[in-house]
């Protein structure tokens, strides 16, 4: 014991040490219920939309071969689009199963495949043919195979294309046309494939040509932002599932709901905040989630930065984003010109031993990243001549972004090695 008599621990060190040696009571009962991918048994305040979705697709339970449907689900971030679709998918699958109808619900996030149609369709084929080759075949061939497999199995499928805008951006009108006019190429054959398209903003379909657009805009379900009382209900549901009884006081749920409400009614943000606040409560051995834990969580959370989106960025997009973060970390300016960021990007590329991409490519990255909401780009007038992009980082602290990108690049590099 004398060995330690001169050691003075900070409060944090003491807490860490104590947690390591003394078993403590966590505020969580089951934190997996706060995971981003968890789909709850019921979706509060989305009952009407769920019924509507069932109305659109209940032909699958009655006369599946006679019809195919295309539905667009649209709404802001955190309004429950993905949860609604997956919840519905599970429900209709179980109903179809009861009626001995061979049916599969397949949910694919297009951004995961950077909007490329072939791997998206491959995912759908593997629902029935798990060993269907992953490479070497074009989208049209895979789509043909998918229809052949569905015919062979006498099966029906709803293919949900989440973050559909990334597919539009990558593949354009042709791909959309191919998907939506599929049945016309199969005159006289049973209908097999229906779609749910999920996108944040209907504006995403504007670049499509008229014929592709018209095949899409038939059934649209809009999810409005959640109001504060609705967020309270949603969070209370999750609190009951994920936390020990009494671990989250009512006023804390209220505070988190308020914060999620100001973050454009984003339920996902609220749930993540709830989880993080719980983590702070456990780390400080508080025994319950206090308002201070929420405040700590808020300062650590980066709402506009979704890790899933960052993970799907390409190597040079990450390098570029790291350059943006470093620029704003080192400069106090609110805006950076394209030229300044390009210089920072060149330095980052040197550090990571990568050949920098061209200006045009970087311009594309700016457009893409600003569409994701990570950076903001606007056309400014350069002082000398011409026009240039003014880049800003409105919502994410540069330090946070730098840390995230450095970690992500480190993982990517070690994965490649």
């Amino acid at each position, binding site marked *: 014991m004398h060995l330690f008599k001169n050691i003075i621990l900070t409060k944090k060190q003491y807490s860490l040490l104590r947690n390591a040696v003394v078993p403590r009571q966590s505020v969580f009962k089951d934190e997996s219920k706060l995971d981003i991918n968890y789909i709850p048994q019921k979706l509060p305040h989305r009952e009407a939309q769920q019924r509507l979705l069932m109305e659109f697709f209940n032909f699958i339970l009655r006369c599946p071969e006679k019809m195919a449907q295309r539905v667009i689900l649209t709404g802001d971030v955190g309004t429950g689009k993905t949860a609604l679709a997956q919840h519905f998918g599970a429900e209709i699958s179980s109903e179809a199963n009861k009626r001995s109808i061979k049916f599969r619900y397949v949910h694919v996030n297009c951004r995961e495949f950077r909007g490329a149609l072939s791997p998206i369709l491959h995912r759908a084929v593997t629902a029935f043919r798990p*060993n*269907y*080759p992953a490479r070497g*075949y074009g989208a049209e*061939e895979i789509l043909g*195979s998918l229809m052949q497999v569905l015919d062979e199995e006498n099966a029906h499928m709803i293919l949900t294309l989440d973050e559909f805008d990334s597919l539009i951006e990558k593949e354009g009108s042709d791909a959309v046309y191919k998907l939506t006019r599929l049945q016309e190429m199969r005159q006289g054959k049973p209908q097999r494939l229906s779609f749910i398209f999920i996108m944040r903003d209907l504006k995403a379909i504007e670049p499509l040509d008229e014929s592709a657009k018209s095949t899409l805009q038939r059934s649209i379900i809009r999810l409005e932002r959640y109001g504060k009382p609705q967020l309270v209900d949603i969070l209370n549901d999750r609190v009951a599932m994920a936390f020990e009884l009494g671990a989250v006081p009512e006023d804390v749920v209220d505070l988190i709901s308020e914060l999620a409400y100001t973050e454009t009614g984003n339920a996902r943000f609220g749930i993540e905040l709830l989880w993080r606040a719980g983590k702070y409560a456990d780390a400080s051995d508080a025994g319950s989630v206090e308002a201070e834990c929420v405040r700590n969580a808020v300062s650590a959370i980066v709402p506009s930065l979704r890790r899933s989106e960052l993970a799907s960025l390409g190597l040079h997009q990450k390098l570029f984003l790291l350059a943006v973060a470093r620029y704003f970390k080192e400069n106090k300016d609110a805006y950076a010109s394209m030229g300044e960021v390009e210089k920072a990007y060149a330095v980052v590329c040197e550090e990571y031993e990568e050949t920098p991409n061209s200006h045009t490519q970087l311009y594309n990255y700016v457009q893409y990243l600003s569409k994701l909401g990570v950076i903001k780009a606007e056309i400014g007038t350069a002082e000398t001549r011409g026009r240039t992009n003014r880049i800003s980082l409105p919502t994410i602290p540069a330090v946070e972004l730098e840390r995230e990108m450095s970690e992500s690049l480190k993982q990517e590099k070690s994965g490649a090695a």
Partner: protein
Amino acid sequence: MEFEEVFSSKSRMKILKLINQLGQLNVSDVTRRLKLNFTSTSEHLKVLESEGILQERTYGRVRMYRFSETAKAKAVVVLIEAWEKQQPAGNEI
């Protein structure tokens, strides 16, 4: 082909075991998983198909092999499964 000739090849037996395990595979996949040569894998698959044990399904350019519905194919599946199940003990009846 005579019975003993069909089952005399170690590679053919491995192919049958693999397809029984995974359901349906294309030639490249079998080649890769068993570390065999493409041409000989393709030939083995043709033999097993001509004997009515496997059947080929074509999806555009993709050709996939699986067990057919014949009595021979069913017997082979039963044999493989019985064998796999009995592996640890080996000599039970």
